[in-house]
């Protein structure tokens, strides 16, 4: 199912569309990404036998605030783009560490994980197009254990857990922000 959605999104992104539709497509993409991230966390908890009411301690990894009232929608998208770049960097680091730790497995978790990575990359491209600037879409994270504070195997798992929560958070933020932007632009077009 994930593959099918993936193809649909790819098709959507390749289609030429006016600006109004781009925001709509980006918002839809973020919504799908949020669903994927939620499912990925569910699979992770299942794999690690972690109860859903057991949450890891620690602060946010990506700390950017989109809630400031002074920020315009475009500025919010700019911040969102930066946050998503960091998320992509974290996810790629996560994949690297897990493959070192467990080898290259081919379960459902790994499949969904790859799908999230791809979709996150698509979302970055979408937000870049929305911003109409030459934003970087490369992952923004140095995969360094000392920087990440990863100590030991269990520490790496907790870091993974936090990264997955971070992905959910930012995918949800992207969905909401882009939805608002889509509504605004649509309103302007109608006027």
């Amino acid at each position: 199912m994930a593959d099918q959605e993936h193809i649909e999104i790819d098709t959507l992104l390749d289609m030429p569309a006016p600006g109004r539709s781009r925001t709509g497509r980006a918002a839809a993409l973020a919504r799908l990404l949020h669903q994927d991230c939620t499912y990925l966390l569910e699979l992770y908890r299942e794999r690690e036998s972690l109860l859903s009411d057991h949450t890891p301690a620690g602060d946010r990894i990506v700390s950017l605030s989109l809630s400031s009232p002074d920020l315009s929608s475009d500025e919010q998208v700019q911040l969102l783009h930066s946050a998503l770049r960091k998320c992509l960097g974290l996810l790629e680091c996560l994949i690297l560490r897990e493959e070192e730790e467990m080898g290259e497995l081919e379960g459902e978790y790994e499949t969904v994980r790859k799908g999230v990575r791809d979709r996150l990359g698509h979302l970055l491209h979408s937000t870049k197009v929305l911003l109409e600037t030459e934003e970087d879409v490369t992952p923004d994270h140095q995969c360094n254990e000392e920087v990440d504070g990863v100590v030991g195997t269990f520490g790496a798992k907790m870091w993974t857990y936090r990264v997955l929560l971070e992905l959910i958070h930012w995918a949800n933020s992207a969905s909401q922000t882009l939805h608002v932007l889509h509504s605004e632009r649509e309103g302007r077009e109608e006027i």
Partner: protein
Amino acid sequence: MFKAWEIFLYPNPALNFFTTVSRTCLVVLYLGFQTVDGSAGLAPPQQVRLDADKETQTLSVTWEDGHASTFDVEILRTELMEMVLNETVGVTEDQSTGKHQWNWTSPVPLECTSLSVKVRSRDGQDVSEWSSQQILPGLDLPDNTDSQMYPEGKTVPVGSNMTFCCIVEEGQQFGSLWYKDTLVKENMLSRRTYATTMTNQGPSNPSGTNVVCSNEKKMIIAGAVVFVGYPPLPSDLVCETHDLTSVDCQWSKGRDTYLFGMTRQTYYTLNGRNCPKARNSNMRCGLEQWDGNWTLVARNLLGEFRLTDAAELGHRVRPVAPVNLTTPEVYSWNASVGWLWKDKGFERLSLICQVCLSGHQTYTGYGLNTVVLKDLQPDEKYSVKVRCGSQKNFWKWGEWSLPLSFQTKMDRSVAPDIWLWMDSDNLGRVLWKPLTKSESHGQISGYEVILWSPEENSQQTLTLPQSVYSLPINVTDLGSKVTVTVTARNPAGVSLPANVVIPRYLPDAEDTAISKVAFNGSGFPLSWVAHANASCGYVVDWYNTSCTQDCNVEWTRVAADNTNTMVQSGNFFAGVRYTFSLYACSSESTVLLERWHGYMQELVPSRTVLRLSPNQEGADVQLTWDQIPLEHQRGFILGYTVYLTNASHLTLLANITDPQLTNHTVRNLVLGSYKFTVKAYTAAGEDGGATVSISLEPYTYWLIMEILVALGTMTCLLIVITIAFTGFSFSIFTILWKTMPGTGLICVCFQGTLDVKPSPHSMVHIVEDSVWDSSKEALVTVPEEDEEGTGDEAADTDEPASLRYYNQVVEEGSSSQRRPHASDSSASSTGSMDSGHTDVTYTGIQTSACYRPQMQSASCPEEPQTGPEEHLQPPVGSFGGYQPQCSWKQDSPEADGDGLDQTCLGSPTSVTSSQFLLPYDTSEEGKEHPSSASTWFHNLLTGKP
């Protein structure tokens, strides 16, 4: 302490005596102290030192100056002062360092909490004082505020026991401990440390087993991962060469280690060289040169395992696949295939090669690189591949080459298999079977059919397309001996001719006897006596027997030296009769030898017998029917069963085992309605049955005969009476022959021998004229609806309103009375006319003195039946005794009180009934008499002998 005592004892040496006594006393006192506290003579260990190896959870304790080989060691958890160990151990002094060292492996990780250790020397029961207490600090000290869990990231064998401890962050409260998703019981080791012990751990998943510690808010505050698995256990190391130079070793991975990732996975080395490609299920490793001896080492964090193999190169040759297959020569029936070797060494090796074509063919040769493929089929596509092995010291087949496809050339087809099917003497069809791929040897373009007659010296030639497999023929003008020749044509030429002499048309039932043949599960087994004139063998053909036009004819050929065959076909169906005909075939003639009929499976007939009809013959009923049409028989008809049908109940009357017999007579029936069912049956059972009904009527000829006999008897009697009583009995004659006024009836009544008096009721009415005076009580035809006691007669109301004769039987009781009265009563008749004519109406010929059925009961009690074999009774609404009168009730005053002894009572029904009431004797004689008489009379009337 000992030295203190000495300093104290030497201050004043002048006091010798006192000193001596004092010293003696003190020594005794000292010895006494030594005995009490045990410390005398043994020095406590000095400079006790603790060293911890936290990875292995090993604590190393070293000390000096023990001067003993046995020591007591005591270990406490410092914070709660709980005893962990109190043990006496033997430790020898290291001569080079002068120190004692003792190692202890803690079941609890050494980080969990601080441990206090002290040691004392022991010599038997003597012990020194404890050494100063040494503390191994844990990580739960206040200055180490973070939450932690130990041990972390360990790899242990399956089945291990482990203790995990959680150190709660300063200021937080412990919540719970979880192993995987299981809440486990904790044990408090210190203020901040809680531990749990897991026993007999099972294998982990690829990411390891989590042990999680949470606080009271269920937040994960610490955790550890343990990897539980097995050491490697590979097997079956085998090394071989594919190119006569290098070595390729393979082995089985064996038991799963459950350990993954770069750190924990299994690594392999072959003769000391790494095997980086040995991953997952691909357990193989290669070396450039053939060593002859190989050692495989498999290693992971839990251990290593070694496998060895040794062999000479020539014993382990498994060639690579041949390359560049070609077909230098291809013909209709054979072809040659060649190939090359990538490694020149194989060109100098004795090889055995397999060629996969249709099945495997094996060839051998030195440096084999070409083979000839024989027994191929013309115009056939083939795909060939080759693999080889070392002929000497064969080890294993090498890899298959890539397949090579080629097609053989075409050739003339085989002669068609032809046969003739004659519908009549001159008309028929030439049939031939389509040629299969293996027979046609190329695409058939058409057929040529030649009819020729040596007698007439004439020939007809017809060319037909490839899709036609039969040809109607008319040999009227071709003489008696006609030969048919069929050839097939393809691009390679014309086939050999197939000839057959037209056999004489012989339908069933002519000349040749027909036997039955049974299907034996796989076919119809036929056997016959050898025929002299079967030079080109026999032909058995078969077809659906009931088919009349354009029948599907199949045939098979049998060699001349064979006299049996099994006829098999996918076109046999259950319930269909097939005719099998055996022909002897020669160049001169085709002669029908034998015929069989057979069913693959017999079924019950699909329909009933045709035109089933009953025919009454007196008390008998003859049933006749026609046979079931052949296509509906669905089995060999073995016979017929005849049933008497009573509602849904069938009573078997006869089983006719001659299937040609299509009639049956049911005898000795009493009056009434009957239903008969006739069923044909095969080996599979009976059909549904055809049913016919009949209502038996009185047989008039018998009645007429009895009337005539009665009249004759009466005449004779009158003559005798006239002679006997002439002279004095004239007056009696007057009475006797007195005509009843106004009725036109004569009543003759006998009572005793001579006491005859007229009866006003027992009478015969004679209708003198159909237009008789209506003022008189004329008797006319009375419809039965008007009769008394119509209850049982109601079933017959659809019959014509003419005279009816009920040939009833009195079942029991008065047999001795019946026969004489049969003639007595009829004596009152004065005339007999055609019973079918309404001008003469017999209205109650009564055996008045003797018959009393009307007197027996007004409700017609049922009489016991004698069974169908004796007298078949009408099944429904049957009449018992004198049925028409049975409901009559005696209302005659003469009958009252006299009962049955009233011998001259006139039956009230005699006036209104239009029926003859005749006796019927139930004795054997009585039973046979009317039947035989009626049969005789019927035969007389119908002219039958």
